[in-house]
């Protein structure tokens, strides 16, 4: 069963409020060398091929990302289809 790994990240121009808190926390722990921290989302999807070829599945995954998994207004995404 193909597995899809999706990573969603905030667009680089947008402030990542959570990331800033984590950055501050790392500094407080003494990791002064840490620069900007940005938090994203990681999703694993199990997909039944149902006789579909790889390009078709890939098209579907892209559609899933555009419609639901990411908000194109504020986020970027990338995915990987694993056999």
């Amino acid at each position, binding site marked *: 069963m193909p597995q899809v790994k999706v990573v969603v990240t905030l667009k680089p121009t947008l402030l990542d409020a959570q990331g800033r808190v984590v950055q501050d926390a790392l500094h407080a722990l003494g990791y002064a060398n840490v620069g900007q921290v940005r938090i994203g989302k990681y999703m694993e999807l199990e997909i039944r091929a149902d006789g579909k070829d790889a390009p078709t599945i890939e098209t579907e995954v892209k559609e899933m990302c555009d419609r639901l998994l990411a908000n194109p207004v*504020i986020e970027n995404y990338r995915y990987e289809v694993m056999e």
Partner: protein
Amino acid sequence: MSATAVGSGPKFAVIRFPGANCDQDAYYVVKDVLGRPVEYVWHQETSLRGFDVVVLPGGFAYGDYLRAGAVARFAPIMEAVRAHAERGGLVLGVCNGFQVLCEAHLLPGALMRNEGCRFACKFVHVRVENAETPFTRAYRPGQVLAIPIAHGEGRYVCDPVTLEELERSHRVLFRYTTPQGEETPESNPNGSIANIAGIANATFNVMGLMPHPERAGEKILGSADGRGVFESLARAAERVLA
């Protein structure tokens, strides 16, 4: 239709998503404060026939999983909300409702985690930026309202082109200010771009705002300043029906 017993004229719908928690406040302000007909509409419904004003209340629809509003926008009722909006019907999204409307692309932009990462639950002041809309006609231009907010993800963002368009066409309806009506960084509770608290779509029949006007409908609640939003809507819908 028992609801017609309570007043007559325009009828309000309050959409109920699982996880909504301001639905009863919205219902109450319409029915008991304004004396207008109102009914709950469950998210699994597919029709808004007979309704003039649709309210998407605050809360955490579908648990806000993935992103606030991301799953709710695909609820069966949302097709009817979209059709209602496309017909020119009035739609008000409060807090989570605003987030749902942005996710549904009925309003531009998005709402992100508050700048300070804190859930902000307090009275704020907003200035009425445009008092010539179906949502704001009960107010004076520039009037400053005290209305509570209660959100963790209310930082309005949009791209520069959209912002320019919003400003140019006076679609920013409410902005966070000081009690004196000055727009300052301190009066911005969440880091929203240009202190934006509420916006309308291009045809001014869909509005989203983060503050909760339904929680400020009577003096006993600390402020009656929010009532004007619902009064404006009722009057606007009445004009359409007349």
